[in-house]
C-alpha cells in the first residue's frame, strides 16, 4: 500500500467553533431554499399572477358594489374602498401559498434522500429545521412584497415607515405559516400534489379570515350576528388568520376590527408552538 503523504490541503480542517459551524450550516440551508425558489418557475408565476388576479380583477371588479349607496340606501359606512380592504389580505394570501409550498418541500427532501445528507452532518436538528423555516419564510415574504408593488393600483399609500412595519408583520406571519406547513407535511406519508393543500388548508383559512368581506365595523357584536349567519361569524372569530390579517390591515390602511396587538400575539404564540411541534416531530423521526 502506498503511504504517500496527504496533499497539504487535505490536512485536517482547523477546528471551527461549534457555534460557527451551526451558523454556517444555517446560512447554507437558508441559501438553498432561496436558490431553489428563485429557480422555480411555477412558484414565481403563481406569486405574480395571484395578486394580479385578486387585486386588479376581483378587487377592481367588486369595488363599486362595496359601497352601501349602490342600492340607493346607505347600509355600511366604511372609510375605505373594497380594493383597499382586500389589499392586505392578498398580501397574506401570497405569503400563505408560498409558505406552505416551501414547507411541502420537506416531503421531497425526505423522499429523495437530501434529508439524509443533512442528518449525517454535525448540524443539530433545530438548526436544520430553522434553516428550512427561515428559508421558506424569506421566500414567502418576497412573494408578499410582490403584492406591495401593486399598492398604487389599490389606492394604498405607502410610506417607508408603513412598509417597514408591514414587513415586520409579514415576517411573523410567514414564519408561523411555514412552521404550520412543516407540521402538516411531517404528517403526510404519501404525497400526490399541492392541490390538496390549497383546497383543504389555504383557501378555507383565507375565506373565513374576514379577508374578502368585512364584518361591519359599524355594527355591534349582536347586530353582526343578525346580518351574517351565526356559524360564519363564529368561524371568522375562531380563525387565527383573521387576527393576523387584521393587524396587517391596520398597518396598511389604518383600519382594525380588533386590537392589533391580538394579531401579533397570536402569530408569535402560533409560530413558537408550531415550530416546537415540528422540532419534536423531527427529533422523533
Amino acid at each position, binding site marked *: 500500500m502506498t503511504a504517500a503523504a496527504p496533499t497539504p490541503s487535505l490536512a485536517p480542517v482547523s477546528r471551527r467553533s461549534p457555534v460557527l459551524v451551526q451558523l454556517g450550516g444555517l446560512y447554507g440551508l437558508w441559501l438553498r431554499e432561496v436558490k431553489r425558489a428563485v429557480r422555480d418557475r*411555477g412558484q414565481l408565476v403563481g406569486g405574480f399572477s395571484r395578486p394580479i388576479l385578486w387585486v386588479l380583477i376581483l378587487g377592481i371588479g367588486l369595488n363599486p358594489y362595496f359601497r352601501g349607496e349602490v342600492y340607493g340606501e346607505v347600509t355600511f359606512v366604511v372609510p375605505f374602498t373594497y380594493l383597499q380592504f382586500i389589499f392586505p389580505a392578498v398580501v397574506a394570501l401570497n405569503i400563505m401559498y408560498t409558505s406552505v409550498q416551501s414547507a411541502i418541500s420537506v416531503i421531497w427532501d425526505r*423522499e429523495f434522500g437530501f434529508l439524509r445528507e443533512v442528518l449525517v452532518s454535525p448540524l443539530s436538528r433545530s438548526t436544520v429545521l430553522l434553516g428550512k423555516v427561515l428559508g421558506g419564510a424569506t421566500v414567502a415574504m418576497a412573494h408578499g412584497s410582490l403584492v406591495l408593488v401593486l399598492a398604487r393600483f389599490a389606492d394604498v399609500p405607502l410610506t417607508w415607515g408603513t412598509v417597514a412595519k408591514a414587513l415586520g408583520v409579514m415576517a411573523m406571519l410567514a414564519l408561523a405559516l411555514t412552521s404550520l406547513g412543516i407540521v402538516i407535511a411531517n404528517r403526510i406519508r404519501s404525497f400526490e400534489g399541492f392541490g390538496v393543500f390549497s383546497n383543504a388548508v389555504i383557501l378555507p383559512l383565507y375565506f373565513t379570515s374576514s379577508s374578502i368581506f368585512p364584518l361591519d365595523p359599524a355594527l355591534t357584536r349582536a347586530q353582526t350576528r343578525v346580518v351574517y349567519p351565526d356559524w360564519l361569524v363564529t368561524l371568522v372569530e375562531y380563525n387565527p388568520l383573521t387576527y393576523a390579517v387584521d393587524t396587517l390591515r391596520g398597518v396598511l390602511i389604518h383600519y382594525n376590527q380588533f386590537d392589533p396587538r391580538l394579531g401579533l400575539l397570536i402569530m408569535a404564540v402560533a409560530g413558537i408552538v408550531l415550530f416546537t411541534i415540528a422540532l419534536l416531530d423531527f427529533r422523533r423521526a
Partner: protein
Amino acid sequence: MAEGTAPAPPIRVDAISRRFGRTLALDGVSFEVRDREFFALLGPNGAGKTTLLHILCTVLRPDSGQALIRGLDVVRQPLAARRLLGIVFQEASLDDRLTVRENLDLHGLVFGVPGALRRRRIDEMLALVELTAWADRTTRTLSSGMKRRLEIARALIHDSEILLLDEPTAGLDAQSRERIWSYIRRLRGERHITVLVTTHYIEEVEGCDRVCIVDRGRVLALDAPETLKRTHGGQMLRIVPRGDDDRRAILGRFADRLKGEAGDAILLASDDAFVEAFLADCGRRIRSMTVEIPSLETVFLTLTGRALRDQSAGESERTRAFGRRGGEHTR
C-alpha cells in the same frame, strides 16, 4: 474500551443486532476494519448491509451491541463520529435543483469547512471525479453515473477519513462502475483514508483488502479474497443430469461431495482428479457439465447454498414516482 498505544481502529462493530418488526435485519454482527483498509461487505439483497451502514453513520440506532468509529460510540457521540465519516448512501441524496458546485459548497458549509479551504477542496474533488467541466450544470441534468461520482466527491469535502459507500456502483453500466473504482483506488493513494464499501457485485470485491460476506444479518466469513477462495472456494462441478434416474444415482453416489442444487443443476465439490474420475464413471448420465474454478461466486455458493438474489423495489415508490414525473414545482 481498552486504549493501547495504537489509535482506535477506524471501525469496530461489536455484536450489533437490529430488528424491524419481524425481520431480524442484523443478528449479532461483529468485525473490525483496519487502518487504511479497503473493506467490502458482500451480501445479497436484504442481507442487512444498508442497515449496518445506517447504524455506523448514526441515523439508525442498534437494538443491542456497539459500533465505534475511531473509538467514538455512534450512539453516545454521534456528532463527533459524523465528522470523521464521508458517506455515500445507496439512494441519491443530492439536491437536483442546485448545480454541481452548489451541492458541494452546501456540504462544505454544513460540515463547517472554512471558505478558502472549501473552495480549494471542491476544485480538487471535482478534478478527481472528472466533473470540473460540469461544475455549473444543474445536478438534475447529470447522468446517474455522474451523480454517483458527485456524491463521492461530496463525501470528501470535509475531513472525512472513513469513507462509507453503500452500493456505489449499483445500477451503473460497466464503464461507469470501473471509473468509480478507479477514483477510489486513486484516492487511497493520495489521502489517509479507510474505505468500507457494500456491494452485491461479486466481481467487484476481488480488489479489496478484505471481504466480509453477510447474509440474513449474519457474518458468514471475513478474510482476504484469496484466503476465502482457498478455504471456502474450491473447484466445483455444475452438473445437469440427463433424467431423474441419473439424478438419483449421482446424488446417491456423491452425497459426501454435494454442495447444493441450483434449479436442474447439482453442485459437487471437485478437483482435477475428480473430474476425470467422474467423467469416466458417470459421463453418460449427464446432459452438461461445467467446471467452476474457485471464485468468490463459489465461495458465496458454498457458504449460503445459493447464488446472489435479485433486486426488489422500494416502499414509498409512489410518492417518488410522482416527484420524478416532474411532480409539482414544490419539489
